[in-house]
């Protein structure tokens, strides 16, 4: 690994040494052992009171959610507020929202990995877990939206006596494949990353069922040189495979809308707009979860520290502005295209019956993140928590505005209808949050929440350099650093 605390270079002639310090990623002068102790200590120890309180609440919500789903399957989706004209409402809103949230995981674990962003190591396990849980929550909504859930297998290319085959021209079909691919690749990526850490936990575990289980899932990992070589290759390949998924999954979700002819949906900006929004909401969710984890386990603050919060907030601000640009661009195109239906739907979004949703969305997504221009706010946990919550509120409203406003006022004014949710709409949404938090809290309880092996790889000790042993150092000098070093006091 290339991580170093101090970069050293030498001029060719006089062996004059220059140091260009790079900020350390982990606080508190950590060693390999302290990292292991802090991270493994969580699942090995007792859960604090706050964990039990949060778990109790989340678990209750999850049970409520499953009961509502059971009732929904029994009774039909008529218990929701949607009907003709507004045929997609909170269910599809929730679906798109959750899939979007899932995007940060792959971005952090794959794209930031390929770009050698070492700060990702502290949060990638977290966000990959979050991705999997968010995609599970997302996947449930189209399933229960079907009503006749027992026909779900019609989505799969299976032989059947109806001689029915999939309609591959439908983006809803592409969605099935996009989401299931995303889920399986995310799980694989997450699991491969977990193997060395599971082995660490196995070695620390007392003999018993826990040791056996950890041993089974650690796949006989010994940390040998050859194993690490295979591991690094596999990780790189999976990162390469996942990278296109970051872009493709939400692009295909946006096609659910964009390939139809409904004004407000039929726009080419949708794919990039959806992907930016997905990363935006995903990072906000990682932020929310990190801060919740701080509350429960304050000891992880040295591993996920101010610099990580700062970096995530920067990404939230940038993607927030991309989303804001998309909102403006949509309005511009609605006017510039000269299409009266398109123009009408956008005017109605801002001034029509759903104005409150539209302006909540603009406030939360465009205005609120601007606070991060101030550096002290980017590292302030309270501010970060509030913004991260508001961003996801705003993103939920964005999905709601897109889905419902366009449908509620379609081509025939006589069929215009105002959508009102029922108690079951609300219960399904809140319940899915319960499911998500339950899974997340269980993850904190049983898994190493930070990728220990990777964090160790970015510690100064992982790549030792001593000025007097230049020949032991890195073979490749970064030209830029050399140039900088020369300028700073080489000759």
């Amino acid at each position, binding site marked *: 690994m290339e991580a170093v605390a101090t970069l050293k270079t030498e001029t060719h002639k006089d062996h004059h040494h220059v140091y260009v310090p790079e900020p350390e990623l982990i606080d508190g002068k950590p060693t390999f052992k302290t990292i292991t102790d802090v991270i493994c200590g969580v699942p090995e120890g007792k859960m604090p009171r706050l964990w039990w309180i949060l778990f109790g609440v989340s678990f209750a919500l999850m049970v409520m959610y499953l009961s509502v789903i059971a009732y929904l399957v029994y009774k039909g989706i008529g218990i929701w507020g949607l009907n003709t004209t507004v045929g997609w409402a909170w269910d599809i809103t929730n679906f798109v929202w959750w899939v979007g949230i899932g995007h940060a995981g792959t971005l952090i674990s794959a794209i930031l990995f390929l770009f050698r962003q070492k700060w990702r190591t502290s949060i990638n396990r977290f966000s990959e877990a979050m991705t999997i849980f968010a995609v599970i929550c997302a996947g449930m909504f189209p399933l229960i939206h079907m009503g006749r859930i027992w026909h779900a297998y019609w989505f799969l290319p299976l032989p059947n*006596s109806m001689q029915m085959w999939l309609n591959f021209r439908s983006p809803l079909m592409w969605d099935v494949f996009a989401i299931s691919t995303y889920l399986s690749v995310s799980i694989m990526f997450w699991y491969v990353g977990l193997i060395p850490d599971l082995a660490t936990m196995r070695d620390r575990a007392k003999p018993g069922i826990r040791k056996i289980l950890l041993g089974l899932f650690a796949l006989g990992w010994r940390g040998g040189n050859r194993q690490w070589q295979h591991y690094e290759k596999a990780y790189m390949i999976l990162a390469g495979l996942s990278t296109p998924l970051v872009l493709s999954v939400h692009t295909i979700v946006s096609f659910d809308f964009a390939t139809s002819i409904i004004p407000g949906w039929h726009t080419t900006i949708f794919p990039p707009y959806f992907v930016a929004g997905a990363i935006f909401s995903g990072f906000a969710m990682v932020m929310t979860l990190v801060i919740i984890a701080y509350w429960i386990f304050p000891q992880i603050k040295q591993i996920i520290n101010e610099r990580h919060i700062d970096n995530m907030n920067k990404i939230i601000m940038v993607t927030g502005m991309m989303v804001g640009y998309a909102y403006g661009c949509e309005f511009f195109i609605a006017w510039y295209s000269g299409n009266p239906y398109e123009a009408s739907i956008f005017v109605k979004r801002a001034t029509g019956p759903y104005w409150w949703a539209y302006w909540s969305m603009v406030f939360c997504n465009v205005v609120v993140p601007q606070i991060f221009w101030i550096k002290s706010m980017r590292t302030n946990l309270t501010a970060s928590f509030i913004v991260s919550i508001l961003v996801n509120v705003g993103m939920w409203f964005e999905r709601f505005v897109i889905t419902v406003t366009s449908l509620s006022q379609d081509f025939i004014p006589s069929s215009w209808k105002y959508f009102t949710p029922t108690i079951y709409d609300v219960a399904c949404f809140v319940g899915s949050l319960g499911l998500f938090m339950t899974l997340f809290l269980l993850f904190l309880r049983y898994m190493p929440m930070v990728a220990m092996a990777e964090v160790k790889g970015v510690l100064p000790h992982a790549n030792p350099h001593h000025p007097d042993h230049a020949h032991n150092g890195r073979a490749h000098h970064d030209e830029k650093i050399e140039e900088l070093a020369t300028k700073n006091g080489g000759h």
Partner: protein
Amino acid sequence: MAQLFPKWTNKIPVFLIAGVLATLVTVTFGFWYFGSPKYLEVGYRPKQPVPYSHKLHAGDLGMDCRYCHVGVEKSAHASVPPTSTCMNCHSQVQARSEKLLVVRESYATNKPIEWVKVHKVPDFAYFNHSVHVNAGVGCKSCHGNVAQMDERGVMQMEPLSMGWCLDCHRNPEPHLRPKSEITNMDWVAPANQKEFAAKLIAEKKIKPPVDCGACHR
């Protein structure tokens, strides 16, 4: 440190992958075969309230199907005859038979006999008897040789699955016959069936629909 697992556990992943794949394939094809109407529904022969024998009436006595199933050429339903149709003959013939007790009771009390439906198509599939019969599809094509079904009742002979419907809609030729032979259970396709069917298709402009809306209206 002692080994946690014996050496043979190295083979677990291979067996696991093979096992999962084999299970998936078995479940899929198992359902496809054992869950299909062809396996589950062909041979359905419920007990009827009256031991009515099609073999006796339509086979041995040679009655035409349409004597009882009057609607078959004119409406969507072939129609099950009312008790009065039975009594046209049975007020005279076998008027004291014990087997006909239910029929006479129904006639006297004016309450229809509750026949059990054998050939069921789901509610969301629209089926019209007249259009098929008038196009030249014989009774036997879908119902089998009813004239051989005795007093144990009528048995379902074809799967009536969507795929089975589509097989004929995509390729109706082997199943078309002259209008005069519609109810004939012993009709065999002649050597020139292909030419005959082509002529009939051209003449009647037969174009069986295969779009969703044809049956799922």
